[in-house]
């Protein structure tokens, strides 16, 4: 039969436990990872006596954690995404602080360099203006270098952090493996200690801040953890074992990080860590840092190359060809950190153009407009002369007279040429000077045969001459048994048109890559321009007294030969004469420095992307956009994470009001149970006191 005393006692015991559970909930209201516990009870059923079955009190069923596996795991995933965005944003802001700092602005340093170049263009002979340009060049170099050093620091900091984060992950994995070990004895998750389960979930949550993990929970409550989405390939915790994650850099791609799982056991390379702080660092390095560095490096290289190119096309103060202003200390490392100033003497700044004009008090005025086009206007020669003949190259073959074949000897890539033949061969310059051949035929001098438009005119002054009387003092030949051997001494420096009619010819000579020194020598050779009428002029090579060309002139025509181009400022008259020769007073010449000044606005420097200041503005703009985008993404992810946490908390966290109500409820139940005991006691007293 039901015993009122034992029923009361069971109530007292149970509600003391309930009160303890509530008390524990209240005590842990602020404990991270704590899951609210409920003391679940069930009625005690006594034996059936006759028709009735009486309850015998209350029993403890279980103390349960309020836990929802889905809410917990979605909070973990959200946390990984948030931490990734947050880390990216933190680092992107650091990069922004570096590049956005106006004191560090690359464009202001480059502007100052060009301002110094402008000053120098106003006073090219001023020593202080020359020194000042070099000082600003040094400042540009230092600016690139200090940017590069700040980038290096950010690179190191983020690399060290990724190692620290990996170590944290490793330590958490180790602890989790230990928890798994402690859980070993029990076969069902419900039987595991609540504290242990909370510890397990807290460890998983902490791991998800570092990297995105996928968790596989077994029936016993033990968990296996892998990196990334899939639960198989990269396990870091398996039963009671954990595997370490190691981070390292690659030499040839310093921004890229390599992750190795279990480096001391059986190493596995992980292509990328997804989510969490570790992935945030990776994203920053690959997307923001690498991009900014690449852009700044491209800028350093474009600046260096374009300034060097201008320097090299001019003459320095003492008349030497300009030398490169910048170089790279180590061209395998990042360019911005390796820039060097190669010249330290103001006189080495190439302010002058290589050529100058003597106007001979002529009515018209000759102005050089270009003197650096030699390389582009003249082409490299064929690989071998056999290629030309063997392939039946009929380059320049004309229609008006019977010509079997013809080819062009490119002047800037032949030297000491020997031609042997037993047929008819005619050799012309592009301007129509017939320098060798059997029969002069002015009808061959056509643009379609490769002659200069302009037009080239037939001239036999040098035909079959040798020695000093020959074209450019370079031709000699001899005939032996029907075979003629023609020698062209040294480098003739201009293209020759060879037209062949019959016979068999062999040719040999020296073909070589264009030699810039020879090109320069030819460009600087003295040329006289004589107007034989208002509409005709001759070009004479002064050294060899060779008339190179007779050309027509119309208002606006360019005069060009040897790779330079000039124009006449007003109409020439008969007797006007000009001499173009090597610049003998480059110190006071500012033409080359004006070419340097033009680089400031030159969009070709960056393949049309913009000039220096525009490209730098783009870099700033891009970086600003990365910060804005990652900030928006972070804020959005924050909202999602807050919601996920609320969802988890609404299941698992402690609500004090609820506990207060429970406290009252269990207190009252406890009091009532005490009354039951008292009632039992009274019943007993009454029975004892029956007399």
């Amino acid at each position, binding site marked *: 039969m039901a015993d009122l005393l034992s029923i009361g006692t069971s109530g007292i015991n149970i509600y003391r436990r309930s009160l303890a559970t509530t008390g524990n909930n209240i005590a842990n*209201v*602020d404990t991270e990872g704590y899951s609210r516990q409920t003391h679940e009870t069930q009625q005690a059923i006594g034996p059936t006596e006759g028709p009735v079955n009486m309850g015998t009190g209350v029993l403890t069923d279980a103390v349960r954690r309020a836990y929802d596996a889905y809410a917990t795991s979605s909070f973990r995933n959200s946390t990984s995404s948030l931490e990734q965005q947050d880390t990216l944003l933190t680092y992107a*802001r650091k990069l*922004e*602080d570096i*590049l*956005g700092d106006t004191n560090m*602005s690359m*464009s*202001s340093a480059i*502007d100052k360099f*060009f*301002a110094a170049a*402008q000053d120098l*263009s*106003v*006073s*090219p*002979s*001023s020593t202080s203006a020359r020194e000042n340009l070099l000082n600003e060049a040094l400042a540009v170099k230092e600016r690139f270098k200090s940017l590069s050093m700040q980038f290096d620091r950010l690179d190191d900091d983020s690399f060290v952090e990724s190692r620290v984060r990996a170590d944290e992950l490793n330590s958490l994995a180790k602890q989790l493996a230990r928890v798994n070990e402690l859980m070993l004895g029990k076969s069902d998750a419900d039987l595991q200690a609540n504290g242990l389960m909370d510890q397990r979930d807290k460890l998983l949550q902490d791991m998800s801040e570092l990297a995105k993990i996928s968790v596989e929970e077994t029936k016993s409550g033990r968990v296996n953890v892998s990196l990334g989405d899939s639960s198989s390939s990269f396990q870091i915790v398996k039963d009671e074992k954990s595997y370490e994650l190691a981070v390292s850099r690659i030499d040839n791609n310093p921004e890229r990080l390599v992750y190795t799982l279990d480096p001391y056991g059986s190493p596995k390379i992980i292509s990328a860590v997804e989510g969490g702080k570790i992935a945030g660092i990776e994203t920053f390095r690959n997307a923001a840092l690498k991009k900014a560095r690449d852009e700044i490096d491209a800028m350093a290289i474009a600046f260096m190359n374009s300034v060097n190119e201008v320097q090299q096309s001019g003459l320095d103060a003492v008349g030497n060809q300009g030398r490169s202003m910048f170089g790279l200390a180590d061209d395998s490392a990042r360019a911005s950190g390796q820039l060097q100033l190669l010249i330290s003497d103001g006189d080495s700044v190439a302010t002058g153009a290589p050529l*100058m*004009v*003597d*106007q*001979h*008090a002529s009515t018209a005025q000759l102005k050089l407009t270009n003197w650096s086009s030699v390389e582009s206007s003249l082409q490299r020669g064929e690989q071998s002369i056999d290629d030309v003949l063997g392939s039946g190259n009929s380059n320049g073959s004309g229609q008006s007279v019977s010509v079997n074949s013809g080819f062009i000897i490119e002047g800037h890539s032949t030297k000491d040429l020997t031609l042997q033949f037993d047929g008819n061969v005619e050799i012309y310059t592009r301007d129509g000077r017939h320098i060798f051949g059997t029969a002069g035929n002015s009808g061959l001098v056509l643009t379609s045969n490769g002659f200069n438009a302009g037009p080239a005119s037939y001239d036999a002054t040098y035909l079959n001459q040798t020695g000093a009387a020959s074209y450019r003092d370079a031709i000699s030949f001899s005939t032996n048994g029907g075979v003629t051997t023609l020698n062209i001494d040294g480098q003739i420096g201009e293209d020759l048109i060879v037209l062949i009619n019959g016979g068999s010819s062999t040719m040999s000579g020296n073909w070589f890559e264009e030699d810039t020194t020879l090109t320069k020598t030819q460009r600087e050779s003295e040329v006289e321009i004589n107007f034989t009428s208002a509409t005709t002029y001759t070009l004479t090579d002064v050294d060899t007294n060779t008339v190179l060309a007779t050309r027509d002139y119309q208002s606006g025509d360019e005069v060009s030969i040897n790779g330079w181009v000039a124009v006449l400022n007003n109409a020439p008259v008969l007797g006007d004469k000009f001499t173009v020769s090597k610049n003998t*007073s*480059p*110190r*006071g*010449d*500012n033409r080359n420095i*004006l070419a340097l000044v*033009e680089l*400031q606005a030159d969009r070709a420097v960056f393949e049309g992307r913009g000039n220096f*200041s525009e490209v*730098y*503005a783009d870099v*700033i*703009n*891009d*970086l*600003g*956009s990365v*910060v*804005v985008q990652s900030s928006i993404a972070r804020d959005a992810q924050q909202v999602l994470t*807050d919601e996920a*946490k*609320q969802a988890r*908390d*609404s299941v698992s*966290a*402690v*609500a*004090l*009001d*609820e506990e*207060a*109500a429970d406290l*009252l409820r269990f207190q009252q139940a406890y009091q009532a149970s005490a009354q039951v005991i008292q009632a039992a006691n009274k019943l007993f007293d009454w029975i004892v006191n029956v007399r």
Partner: protein
Amino acid sequence: MIRVTNSTIFDRISSQLVAQQSRLAITQEKISSGKNYLRPSDGPDAVAALDRLESTVNQSEQYLKNLGRVKDKLNFQETAIVSLNDELIRCKELVLQGANGTLGSELRATLAIELRSIYDSAIAIGNQKDLDGSYLFSGYKQGTPPFSSSLDPLVFGFDGMYAGDDESQRINIDQGYGIEIGMPGSALFSSFKDSDGNKTDIFSLLKSAINGLENNDQDAIQKSIDDVNLSLTHVNIKLAQVGSKMNVVENQVNVLEDRTTTLEMAISSIHDLDYVKAVTDLKNQSIALEAGQASFAQIANLTLFNYIK
């Protein structure tokens, strides 16, 4: 119905307070710096535009600086050419006096003495330097005095006595806009024709006049009158050229100053903070923050435990 727990309440309130505080801090930073954009992410496009605009202003200012130097150089040139003109006018007077048929050879010799000093003055004018110490009329050979009084142009020719070259400096006064400001001595002192249509120069002409007067050569003196007139025309053309360059410079200064003003206004409209709006924002944000703080205090007090006595 969602179960609201204590951590939810505290998390939410504290994250809201943090957000309000950071908004307030940003507004405060803008007000104290007076700038709309403190870092690129505050407005990537605007910050990039500012960078470009500032670079353009820097360039305009550099061109203005160039123009200042150009003006100096042109002033020097003008002064020199004006005095050359004065000397030639005096020369013309002397030659006209000398052409008077009744004049004796002694008096002609006296005139020749003054003409010799004019010749020396012309050499001195030709050897003038500008502010930075470079010769005005020697082309690129800025360190070389272009004329020497010891070389007789009638013996050596103008080319023989002129140590400069025919080049003249060009200076950029705007993007892709350069003006030639140099005037080689060969262009100022020669490059014109005498009364016979032959090329001549001022020094040869002065020397011929001196010789004519000293040798009492009436024909030579007559020719000198015509030649001096032609040289005056030539020098006046050169003076007019300098004058027109000065006009170009003046106009360009105005153009650049206008441009700089416009650009600076554009920069200021992007860059400068709208204080009225910023202060209003600050006020609203601090009210919001205070309200947040007050509501936090309220909600934090709201617990059932207060009523369990």
